[in-house]
């Protein structure tokens, strides 16, 4: 008897599942009073991943989940997304008409999204940091924007310039391609101080992706890609002012003004000024803990939005002056041993860009885009007795065509690009001139089947005048196992030309000499990544857990070997293995309404062959732990943010060949950093107060032979932790909304 019941249950069970409503219908657009089918439109049940795409007649057929809302979200690129309530329309023949979007950029924000969230529908694993998140660390610039990001680490490069560097997958920031609005930027000479060139309040959002990226942007993304979106001229607030001051004496002001001239033209002026003029030496090593900084950064951008033609252009100017070194060094007097050790970096940077987009009228989802950018970067600097002067002229052009094959599930982007870099560098008596130009063509195919598989496969072929032909294949895939589990895979190749001096200015602030033992080749690597994301319903909220593994293997890498000889840094091509393995687990949950919690842990295994021996790469934390908590009161009147980061031990460069007082331990200690911020929102004003490094953790004696900076063993580059202690700041924001 029991058997029959069981069999009956087994037979009936699928029916109870199927009993869930089925809905049939079509998606159309109106052209001159006639309704035309839309092929490949996405039809998804609200709040689920249960969805389908329309066929060649625009028809669809979908089995609904019972538990989820009986509503459909219908979307199609360049059309306005519509939500259909099936209780009103019925389930039989749902006729849906979508309206063409007037503006491709139009994005509708539905509800409060957590500050940093992974984008569910993206094929590549992309974490987006939005404006709300950026405001959690009110201070300053790009370097503070990653405080709550588990994937990106920020560290100091040396103890005298205040320069900060990012790390992704345990690999130096150089291997991460930086884009501003999808154009490669902040390259070459800009690298040492680039995080300071992007003011926090200019940014609308940041997208971080690990692994090799799209081939559309060139071959450079080896470990990952960071794209910065600035505030647009025609969106959001008309006027924005931010004033900031810290107890150390740093002051900063930001002003954003946006005008809409008419329906088609709009413009924005973004301005930033910062000043830090008070000398501090809390660790009594006669050196400034933080360099003095003056910066002016101005950006004017324009946007034209026609029916089919879109255009954006703008110009940016940046001037920065950094002064560091010993407390009593006087930059006006001759830079010699008598005057003391000084550091000065003067930067002028000019940038102009032009983007043109044309949407084809007679073919849906098809457009032509043309991106152009010119940059001139000039730096005049000295580090003690080392003088380093350099300039760079770069042009980047990328012409793209985007369309689809058969229906819009099969899309492609293809195009040609040209990049030119002219470098002129002078270090003391040596001059390097490098003229590099790269011409390339690419093709990228995107398959999107909303329900299960999404694929981006791209190839590009470039000709580099210095290194010949370079072939870059890349593949990204996302598979939805079901609506709660998804798997992402990425595989690809990347290349990069090293700029040894500009990328290692920290070596200039040592007594060491740089010696090139061989002609350097282009750096090249393969990267493989696997990401598994699970969404687990707990109560009404969803817990998301993302686990990823990334492996990067270098075929060639420029090695900086400082472990052979105390007085010389050798630069040569990799001879042997070099790899990085990085495993990360990140969990996000909202246990109470408006209280968000994030917990992440990452383990890094990064090894390189230095001097014939496979060694752990210096300055990479063995592991990183991150806890971040954020609470917003009802109607966003108050916000409280807290984050703790635990940095595991790092291998430090070998110093055993130095006399005893100038030796350092083999590994750095484990330490934690605590940051917090409280924001009070008023109708037009926000007031924020916060603290960084609240436990006042500092690295002792960051500089070797600080008492004799012109001695043989002087070295300010062995920095693994914060040099200045607790920092408390206060600021106000004033906004006039649109």
């Amino acid at each position, binding site marked *: 008897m029991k058997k029959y019941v069981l069999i009956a249950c087994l037979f009936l069970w699928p029916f109870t599942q199927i009993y869930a409503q089925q809905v049939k219908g079509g998606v159309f657009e109106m052209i001159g009073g006639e309704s035309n089918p839309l092929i490949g439109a996405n039809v998804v049940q609200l709040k689920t991943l249960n969805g389908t795409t329309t066929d060649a007649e625009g028809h669809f057929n979908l089995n609904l989940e019972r538990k989820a809302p009986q509503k459909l979200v219908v979307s199609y690129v360049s059309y306005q997304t519509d939500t259909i309530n099936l209780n009103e329309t019925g389930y039989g023949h749902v006729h849906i008409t979508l309206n063409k979007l007037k503006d491709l950029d139009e994005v509708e924000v539905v509800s409060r999204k957590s500050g940093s969230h992974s984008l569910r529908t993206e094929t590549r694993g992309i974490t987006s940091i939005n404006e709300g998140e950026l405001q959690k660390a009110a201070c300053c610039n790009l370097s503070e924007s990653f405080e709550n990001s588990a994937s990106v680490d920020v560290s100091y490069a040396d103890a005298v310039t205040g320069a900060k560097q990012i790390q992704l997958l345990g690999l130096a920031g150089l291997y991460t391609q930086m884009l501003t609005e999808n154009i490669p930027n902040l390259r070459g000479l800009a690298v040492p101080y680039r995080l300071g060139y992007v003011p926090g309040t200019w940014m609308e959002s940041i997208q971080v992706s690990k692994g090799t990226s799209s081939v559309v942007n060139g071959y450079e993304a080896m470990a990952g890609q960071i794209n910065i979106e600035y505030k647009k001229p025609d969106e959001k607030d008309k006027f924005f002012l931010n004033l900031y001051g810290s107890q150390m004496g740093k002051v900063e002001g930001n002003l954003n003004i946006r005008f*809409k001239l008419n329906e088609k033209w709009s413009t924005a002026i973004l301005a930033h000024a910062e000043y830090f003029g008070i000398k501090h030496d809390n660790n009594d090593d006669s050196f400034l803990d933080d360099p003095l900084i003056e910066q002016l950064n101005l950006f004017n951008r324009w946007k034209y939005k026609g029916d089919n033609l879109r255009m954006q252009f703008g110009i940016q100017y940046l001037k920065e002056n950094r002064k560091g070194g010993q407390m009593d060094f006087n930059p006006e007097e001759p830079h010699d041993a008598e005057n003391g050790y000084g550091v000065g970096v003067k930067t002028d940077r000019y940038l102009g860009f032009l983007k043109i987009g044309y949407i084809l009228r007679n073919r849906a989802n098809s457009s032509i885009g043309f991106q152009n950018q010119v940059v001139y970067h000039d730096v005049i600097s000295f580090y003690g007795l080392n003088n380093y002067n350099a300039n760079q002229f770069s042009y980047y052009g990328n012409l793209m065509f985007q369309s689809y094959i058969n229906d819009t599930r099969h899309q492609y982007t293809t195009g040609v690009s040209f990049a030119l870099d002219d470098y002129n560098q002078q270090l003391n008596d040596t001059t390097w001139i490098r003229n590099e130009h790269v011409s390339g063509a690419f093709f990228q195919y995107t398959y999107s089947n909303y329900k299960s598989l999404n694929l981006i496969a791209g190839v590009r072929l470039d000709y580099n005048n210095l290194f010949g032909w370079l072939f870059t294949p890349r593949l990204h895939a996302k598979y939805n196992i079901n609506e709660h589990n998804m798997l992402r895979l990425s595989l690809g190749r990347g290349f990069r030309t090293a700029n040894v001096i500009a990328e290692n200015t920290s070596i200039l602030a040592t007594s060491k000499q740089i010696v090139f033992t061989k002609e350097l080749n282009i750096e090249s690597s393969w990267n493989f990544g696997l990401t598994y994301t699970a969404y687990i319903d707990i109560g009404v909220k969803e817990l998301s857990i993302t686990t990823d593994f990334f492996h990067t293997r270098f075929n060639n890498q420029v090695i900086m070997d400082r472990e052979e000889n105390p007085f010389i840094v050798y630069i040569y091509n990799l001879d042997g293995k070099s790899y990085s393995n990085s495993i990360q687990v990140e969990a996000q949950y909202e246990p109470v309404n408006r209280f968000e919690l994030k917990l992440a842990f990452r383990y890094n295994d990064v090894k390189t062959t230095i001097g014939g021996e496979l060694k752990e790469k210096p300055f990479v934390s063995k592991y990183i732990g991150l806890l971040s908590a954020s*609470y917003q009161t009802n109607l966003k009147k108050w916000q409280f943010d807290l984050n703790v980061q635990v940095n595991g031990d790092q291998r430090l460069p070998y110093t055993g060949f130095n006399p005893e007082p100038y030796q350092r331990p083999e590994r750095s200690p484990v330490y*934690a950093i605590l940051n917090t911020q409280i924001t009070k929102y*008023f109708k037009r004003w926000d007031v924020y107060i916060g603290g960084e490094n609240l436990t006042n953790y500092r690295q002792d004696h960051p500089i070797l032979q600080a008492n004799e900076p012109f001695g043989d063993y002087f070295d300010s580059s062995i920095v693994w932790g914060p040099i200045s202690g607790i920092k408390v700041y206060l600021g106000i924001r004033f906004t006039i*909304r*649109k």
Partner: protein
Amino acid sequence: MKLKLGIIIAILCMAIMQVNAQEIKTTIDTVKIQTSAKCNDCKERLEHNISFEKGVKSVELDNETKILTVVYKTAKTNEEKIKIAITKVGYDADEMPADQKAHDRLPACCQKDADPH
């Protein structure tokens, strides 16, 4: 260091509990008001401004019907005050017409004679 961290967390927790405790006692009422809102910008503008009115606990504009649902503390405000606040942002509130000056300051797409979009 651990102690310091503990104290900071405790203070934060207390602050949160305090806020919640205050909310429970007073009498709460809900009102639905028909507005002349047009678009998503209008929704953001109305919700932001009304949320800073005294006594307002929650505010949401329905995108389809343009009805604004406001939850408020009866001790601190009333339906009329909320409606006046809406008119001052530049929108009609049921029978009350929008403040003309505020209405004219709105972008063209948000004014009453604009096409719904």
